[in-house]
């Protein structure tokens, strides 16, 4: 776990996502981790889903207590879908923290195809997000985004608006004119109200 993210709430939420794990050793009294088991102890070889933070910390013990498996959205089938056309994927449903979780998961992937998929997915979707933010009304027409994508889109829209208003103020006579017009409009509205 990188220490620079130690106090970041979003990293904490990412590490709260569940990942499938296989326990390599017996765990006495930890039967409650597996909801389908009635026993008090957790046997070696049990496959269950545990939060990433627990998996990471048990994986780094010497000897490791668990081996981490890929969550299904990073498996072959989903990788094929993402590599075919990532822009059509509903990222909100697929994984709120697709990229961030992927970065943690990538090191458990022996063939290291996950990291390539992450990069490829981001490249494809970045173009879509970028073109959506430049025009004001198409933002709702793109496929639902993941949490970090939404964040990035929001700041892109704000920046875009700030830039265009800055560019307009450079255009002095027109702005003054339209501002006076707006002012008059407001005055008229106020007069009508009173």
């Amino acid at each position, binding site marked *: 776990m990188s220490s620079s993210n*130690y*106090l*970041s*709430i*979003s990293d*904490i*939420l990412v590490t*709260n996502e569940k990942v499938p794990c296989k326990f390599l*050793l*017996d*765990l*006495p*009294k*930890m039967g*409650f*981790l597996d909801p389908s088991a009635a026993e008090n102890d957790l046997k070696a070889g049990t496959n269950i889903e545990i*939060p990433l*933070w*627990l998996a990471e*910390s*048990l994986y780094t*013990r010497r000897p490791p*207590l668990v081996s981490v498996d890929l969550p299904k959205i990073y498996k072959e089938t989903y990788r094929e879908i993402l590599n075919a056309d990532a822009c059509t994927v509903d990222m909100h449903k697929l994984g709120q923290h697709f990229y961030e979780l992927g970065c943690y998961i990538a090191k458990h992937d022996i063939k290291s195809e996950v990291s390539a998929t992450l990069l490829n997915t981001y490249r494809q979707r970045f173009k879509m997000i970028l073109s959506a933010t430049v025009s004001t009304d198409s933002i709702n027409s793109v496929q639902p985004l993941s949490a970090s994508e939404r964040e990035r889109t929001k700041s892109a829209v704000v920046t875009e608006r700030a830039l265009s208003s800055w560019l307009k103020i450079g255009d002095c006579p027109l702005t003054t004119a339209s*501002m006076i017009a707006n*002012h008059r409009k407001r005055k008229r509205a106020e007069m009508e109200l009173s």
Partner: protein
Amino acid sequence: MFGEKVIELLKEAERNRETIDLYNDEKIRQIIQEMHVLFKMNMSDANATTENKTLWTTVQVRHSALERNKRCLLAYLYNRMIKIKTLRWEFGSVLPPDVRELLSDSEYDWFSKYSTNLATYMRSLGEDIGYSGIDLTENLRPPKSLYIEVLCITDYGKLELEDGDVITLKKNSRHFLPTSECQTLIRQGVLKQII
């Protein structure tokens, strides 16, 4: 499952990023209680590992949970601290009572100390060139003109200007004021600039 209460706590904080919530005393107490229980179980199991070697795995799982809870609690407090810092810059050194009651006692202590520190620093600015301090919370944007027209949004009361005039700020009243005197009030949402 471990660490679920603490996640609820953080999700609450994450939903409301722009504003500060009530300090969740009750939930934090519950979490610390959970940590005490885990710690005690670990103590007794750790002592028992001499007879039963397999118990050490369980101890490690609980230890991870303890570390996780600690991390989440620290993150909660840290993120609140950042927000409290912002409060000082936006509301000024005196918090309105409805904001004040959202902070815990130690948080309010921290706020007062931060506020004093900041004030001392701002007073010390420019001493060497003959100024008696600069208010850094003013002029966050370069002022465009000396006077601006403002609309009063709330019933604020009397305001004494630098030249000695006293004006009454009533709801929906309009004023033509020096920018330097009203920008703090604009930031506080008492006045609104009319363009």
